[in-house]
């Protein structure tokens, strides 16, 4: 495949990596016993890539044969993928089932004692466990593990084509692959961790990699600033997350999932858990999740993070890392699940989750309306879709806390399913956008060597690419459909459930859920608009610049992952829906089982409940019809004369031109559009706050330290010097004064002695 068939032989080094899983199987290992290797193999690989890259930089073999380390990265990820597939096979198709304990006994990492005051005296607290590290698997982590390993592998594959062909990356790709693999370690570790602390540890590793990879083009001011912004913003959340951990540890005396989830209503030493305490702890954890998943109000970093190379955006900032927050919120389910030992009284927390999700979903979709940068559109789309999942989780937590566990499990399952669909689709969309950018950049490079102002990511420079990039356009179309929720494709199967259950929560349980419910419904239509807009601006209509006319799809390595993911996106959702993935992920069923096609379709389109039916159809109407049609009116159009798109997307291009064109320049110049362009001024606000509080305060502190605290010391010093000079002045040099002083001294002694003796 690709331009040169002999590229395949480059893959030879990954064979031993792939063989790890079969070999272990042959040795009689259980799949879960090998789970730790998912983390350890990349852990050993990434320093090797970095160091070897530093040493062999510029070496021809290193560059051409090993793709500057990319091959080794791919190998490590392949072995992780193979092991995770082995585990997935064991659990999904095989006989293993999940129970409430770590699948691998934790290794004691930190041991210590804690003392406490029992009202009369201090004593050792027995209930506090060591902090260990082990492996934990349940349906959701299994799903996430698969997503992570699968996408990491594919995107690494994609990177071999994307990164190594760009001259600007030359001699620094080892850095990319090293950090990429390190990121994979973080993601795999977070998914496998069996306690909150290690979850947090890997969470931070991901944060580091996100920082490093956003700042991959370290010399770009914007990339450096974006990297810092990403790290700091998530750091704010992380700090609260850490505080949450402290609180949890104090409540339960452990951070192990198995210990906490065994009975979340009783804390350390058998004490009943106070819902207020737990509320605070969960809230703190949630702030961490908000930061990581770029939700309002800590969302500002994600659009800027697009400064990183596109594979990074695809993997970290769309498909995997940003899901960590969702995963963390999902982990809170046992706390609120009053059906099984949960703690009642946490509805407020659930509402907060839902509201944050609703607000972010709407806001991000709105901002996506006006973005012209293809990656920024996708970034806001990511934010918006993640927010859906948060809303769903919020609704689920609410249901569970109120005892409606069927609805709760369902919506939580739907949320997690949406996570899966979104990850696959969004990973693919980013790769496709990368493909577009890559080729546009190439074409531009080919045409105008010197012009550096050209932005290859700006959709206003594209147009009509459907004919030039068939595979990419197909992939992008399916990805967009999945995100929009076009019936039967990918995201439809999960999004529908989220929206419906959110409405149900409003209708039956909690009036305050109205807000999120309306917001997510509106967002569904908006998603239809901006995703269609993006596709049309890129692929439909005549080319908008000479560069766009010269684009052609050619680079190897890029197409294969796109094709694989297109298939997964297009069919995976339906397939999994048939298998009852929602129930499985929600925890209601402990295995996947094939449902009838008719049943499934009926459940989706014609549920028995009238309310559900109404909500479902209005969602479909908004998302699949109104939004896309409006987008077509503005951006649709035929390709240039004489070129033809392939039939799979051709119909869409032609269809879009049918709706005529509408001039929106007035709207585009409105104040609202301006506000959206400025991202609703949040970035400006934060910058203003920092510039007017933290920075002056820091300068003041530095001044204070130098002039006040050290000033006191310096004052002592200068006073000593002036004191010294004046004391020396008493020694006038005149002998008479000396004698006088002696006489005075004598009299003083008399006085003193006399005073003492009297």
């Amino acid at each position, binding site marked *: 495949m690709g331009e040169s068939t002999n590229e395949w032989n480059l893959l030879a080094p990954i064979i031993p990596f792939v063989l790890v899983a079969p070999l272990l199987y042959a040795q009689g290992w259980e799949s879960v016993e090998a789970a730790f290797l998912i983390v350890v193999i990349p852990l050993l690989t990434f320093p090797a890539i970095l160091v070897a890259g530093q040493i062999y930089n510029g070496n021809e073999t290193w560059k051409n044969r090993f793709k500057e380390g990319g091959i080794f990265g791919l190998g490590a990820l392949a072995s992780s993928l193979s092991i995770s597939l082995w585990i997935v096979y064991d659990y999904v198709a095989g006989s293993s089932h999940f129970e409430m304990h770590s699948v691998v006994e934790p290794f004691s990492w930190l041991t210590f004692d804690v003392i406490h005051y029992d009202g009369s005296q201090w004593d050792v607290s027995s209930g506090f466990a060591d902090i260990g590290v082990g492996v934990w698997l349940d349906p959701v982590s299994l799903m996430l593990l698969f997503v992570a390993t699968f996408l990491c592998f594919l995107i690494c594959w994609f990177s071999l084509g994307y990164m190594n062909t760009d001259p600007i990356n030359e001699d620094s790709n080892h850095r990319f692959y090293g950090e990429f693999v390190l990121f994979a370690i973080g993601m795999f570790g977070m998914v496998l961790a069996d306690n909150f602390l290690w979850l947090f540890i890997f969470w931070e590793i991901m944060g580091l990699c996100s920082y490093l990879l956003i700042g991959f083009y370290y010399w770009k001011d914007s990339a450096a600033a974006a990297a810092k912004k990403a790290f700091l913003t998530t750091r704010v959340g992380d700090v609260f997350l850490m505080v949450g951990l402290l609180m949890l540890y104090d409540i339960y005396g452990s951070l192990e999932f198995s210990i906490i989830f065994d009975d979340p209503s009783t804390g350390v030493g058998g004490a009943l858990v106070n819902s207020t305490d737990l509320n605070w702890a969960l809230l703190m954890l949630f702030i961490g999740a908000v930061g990581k998943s770029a939700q309002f109000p800590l969302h500002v970093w994600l659009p800027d993070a697009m400064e990183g190379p596109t594979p990074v955006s695809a993997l970290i900032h769309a498909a995997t890392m940003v899901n960590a927050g969702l995963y963390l919120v999902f982990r809170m389910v046992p706390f609120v699940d009053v059906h099984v030992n949960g703690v009642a009284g946490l509805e407020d927390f659930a509402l907060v989750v839902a509201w944050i999700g609703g607000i972010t979903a709407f806001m991000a979709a709105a901002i996506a309306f006006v973005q012209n940068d293809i990656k920024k559109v996708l970034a806001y789309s990511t934010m918006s879709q993640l927010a859906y999942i948060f809303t769903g989780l919020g609704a689920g937590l609410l249901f569970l806390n109120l005892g409606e566990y069927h609805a709760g499990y369902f919506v939580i399952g739907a949320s997690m399913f949406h996570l899966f669909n979104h990850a696959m689709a969004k990973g693919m969309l980013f790769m496709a956008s990368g493909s577009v950018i890559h080729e546009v950049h190439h074409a531009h490079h080919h045409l105008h060597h010197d012009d550096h102002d050209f932005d290859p990511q700006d959709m206003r420079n594209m147009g009509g690419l459907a004919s030039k990039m068939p595979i990419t356009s197909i992939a992008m179309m399916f990805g967009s459909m999945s995100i929009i929720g076009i019936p039967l494709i990918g995201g439809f199967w999960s999004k529908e459930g989220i929206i419906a259950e959110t409405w149900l929560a409003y209708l039956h349980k909690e009036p305050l859920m109205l807000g999120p419910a309306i917001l997510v419904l509106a967002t569904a239509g908006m998603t239809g608009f901006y995703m269609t807009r993006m596709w049309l601006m890129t692929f439909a209509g005549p080319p908008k610049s000479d560069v766009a006319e010269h684009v052609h799809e050619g680079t190897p390595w890029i197409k294969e992952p796109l094709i694989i993911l297109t298939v997964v996106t297009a069919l995976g959702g339906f397939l999994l829906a048939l298998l009852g993935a929602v129930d499985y992920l929600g925890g209601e069923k402990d295995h996947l089982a094939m449902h009838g096609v008719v049943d499934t379709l009926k459940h989706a389109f014609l549920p028995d409940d009238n309310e559900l039916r109404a909500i479902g159809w209005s969602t479909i109407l908004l998302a699949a019809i109104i939004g896309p049609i409006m987008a077509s009116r503005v951006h649709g159009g035929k390709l240039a004369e004489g070129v033809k798109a392939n039939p799979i997307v051709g119909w869409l291009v032609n269809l879009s031109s049918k709706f005529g064109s509408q001039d929106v320049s007035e709207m585009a110049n409105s104040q609202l559009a301006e506000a959206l362009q400025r991202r609703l001024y949040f970035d400006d606000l934060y910058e203003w706050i920092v510039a007017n509080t933290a920075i002056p305060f820091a300068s003041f502190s530095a001044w204070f330290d130098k002039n006040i605290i050290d000033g006191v010391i310096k004052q002592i010093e200068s006073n000593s010097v002036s004191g010294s000079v004046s004391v*020396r*002045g008493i*020694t*006038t*040099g*005149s*002998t*008479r*004064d000396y*004698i*006088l002083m002696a*006489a005075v001294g004598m009299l003083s002694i008399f006085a003193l002695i006399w005073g003492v003796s009297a």
Partner: protein
Amino acid sequence: MIETSWIVGLGVILFFIGLIGAFTRKNAIVVLMCIEVMLNAANLNFVAGASHYSDVDGWVFTAIAIAIAAAEVAIGLAILLSLYSTQETISLDEANILKN
């Protein structure tokens, strides 16, 4: 016989005359004389004590103190001469190259 206390009283007066003179006069020779006066005040006391206690030590002390005074004056004058040879002054105020 004169009361010992009267002699001591005279000694006190002499001593303070000497002491006050020592830090009010600028001329080194005069100060040297003031020191002599102070020493003589001490001698008076020794003499008075000797007669008061009928103790021969006091007389010896007096004699030796006079000898010390003489030595002191000799040395003092010699030092003043050397001061005069370099700075051409024997004023206690004016010789103040060394100070602070």
